[in-house]
């Protein structure tokens, strides 16, 4: 049963991150996901200090607020004439530093472990169960992640057309009257929500990987957004299952090996993808060479 819950948790993380990751990659904002996943730390720390418990809902709220603050600050600096990547770097390092200080100042009396925040402890997911009316309803993390996935699915499903247009051609989207800024912040809000929900179980670094790597792999495999979304989710689930068994086999960190599997899948797609892989490119070049040059 433990295997099942861990893989389910990983797959839920992978699914919601995979969907959002596709949009992030298309909008060339992959590193904003990285920034958000680091800078929600002070939000978590503050929520923890206020409530004094690991109450998931409050943490979720605090962290989402900080996620949006991050996006807002990055945009503010960019409008002030700073390079995009430099402003990302400044904002997330500053917020992360605040978070680390908050936690280590109060480290003596709280049991919020920095390592746990960074790497997560997916192996313990099954012990922290949600009990409703005396019934054991399964791990709490699964419920939280399932809820997040539902929210993500609902938002993307309802506004699929709008998101698609904003991702590919923001100028056209603005011209036909779609509130581009609103959708930008909606997307960012969803990213922070799922980052935070995934945090406790899989850790900050794995979240970044899950946001970017499966979506990039899918990007190499197809040219259609809808197919890309489906591929990205499937790849994410594959990573979490494969990563879990690999970790069990060589006795190591589950989160780390999930990302390693994702990396291997990416490498395979990079070389063998029928559309954009190295082999396909090479074959195409050979074919083109064989065709005689038209005389004109």
């Amino acid at each position, binding site marked *: 049963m433990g295997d099942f819950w861990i893989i389910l948790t990983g797959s839920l993380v992978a699914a919601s991150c995979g969907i959002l990751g596709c949009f992030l990659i298309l909008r060339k904002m*992959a590193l904003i996901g990285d920034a958000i996943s680091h800078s929600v730390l002070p939000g978590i720390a503050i929520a923890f200090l206020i409530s004094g418990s690991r109450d998931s809902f409050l943490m979720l709220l605090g962290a989402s607020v900080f996620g949006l603050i991050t996006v807002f600050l990055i945009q503010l600096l960019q409008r002030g004439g700073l390079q995009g990547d430099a402003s990302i*770097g400044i904002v997330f390092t500053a917020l992360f530093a605040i978070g680390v200080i908050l936690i280590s100042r109060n480290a003596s009396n709280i049991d919020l472990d920095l390592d746990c925040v960074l790497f997560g402890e997916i192996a313990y997911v099954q012990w922290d169960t949600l009990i409703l009316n005396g019934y054991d309803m399964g791990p709490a993390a699964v419920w939280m992640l399932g809820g997040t996935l539902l929210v993500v699915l609902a938002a993307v499903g309802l506004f699929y057309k709008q998101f698609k247009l904003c991702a590919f051609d923001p100028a056209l989207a603005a011209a036909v009257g779609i509130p581009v800024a609103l959708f930008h912040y909606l997307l960012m809000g969803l990213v922070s929500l799922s980052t935070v929900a995934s945090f406790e179980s899989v850790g900050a670094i794995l979240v970044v990987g899950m946001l970017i790597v499966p979506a*990039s792999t899918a990007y190499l495999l197809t040219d259609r957004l809808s197919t890309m979304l489906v591929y990205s989710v499937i790849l994410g689930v594959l990573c979490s299952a494969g990563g879990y068994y690999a970790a069990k086999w060589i006795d190591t960190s589950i*989160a780390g090996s999930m990302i390693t599997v994702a990396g291997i899948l990416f490498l395979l797609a990079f070389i063998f993808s029928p559309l954009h892989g190295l082999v396909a490119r090479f074959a195409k070049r050979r074919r083109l060479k064989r065709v005689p040059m038209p005389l004109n």
Partner: protein
Amino acid sequence: MGSLLLGLGSGVIGSFTVLRKQSLLGDTLAHAALPGICIAFMLSGVKSMGLFMIGAIISGMIATLGIHIITSFSRIKQDAALGITLSVFFGVGVVLMTKIQHSGNGNQSGLDKYMFGQAASMMLSDVYLMGTVSLLLILICALLFKEFKLVSFDPGFARGMGLKVAVLEQLLLLMTVVAVVVGIQAVGVVLVAALLITPAVAARYWSDALGVMVILAGLFGALSGVIGTLISSTLSNLPTGPVTVLSSTSIFFVSAVCAPGRGLIAKWIQRVRNRRVIQPNIESVGTHAVLQRTAAVERSTE
């Protein structure tokens, strides 16, 4: 003293990386160093800073190579490529690190120090090593300043001048890797990017000349290193890395607000002055077009 030299060195290198629009490369390299450190430990079985640095430098170079291959042989953009290398290398690093911890080697306790860094508890020999490397970096920068300047601003022209652009770029990259690896010891994996980016961006507010900017960035970096170490050693329970980063962020904020020419206050004064110059014209002509032009001028001064 170690953090002073470190701040100086990484500030100087950072101004080149920021100008070449590779700010987040530092972040990626820092994460990518982890597997190198772990492998160095697994192979040697001892905790020696020199060996760790060699391992980290090698895996950092592999990571930059990976980014280069991904961006040039597929349609994946630079940012996604950075993210992929960052997370995959780090994932491998975490796998290796837990493997080391599970193998029950009593010597491993220091490895997780690399996550957050602990400048205050460094040994004297480590400080010497860090200081020497930082000094070396600064020296190379000073010697090759003219070449680096050309390569950063106009690689095409540099090539026309007969400079070996590829070699210089590789050298700059290698120096970035070294600066990052040294920085990890002091402030940890996550925050080392700030050492490179923040002082350089703050210095950019004050000057348009590269020479001045590089010196300023070095000074800012050194200043925040000293402030961070002082604060964290006087107050208990304060880790050095985050305090250093926050002090350089405050330097950045001060620069962003009051720097002459680019700061918020200077811009505001400029805008008021513009309006005063243009206002009489609007009153005499009073057309919509002029109003629009005022808006355009204001926007262009921003």
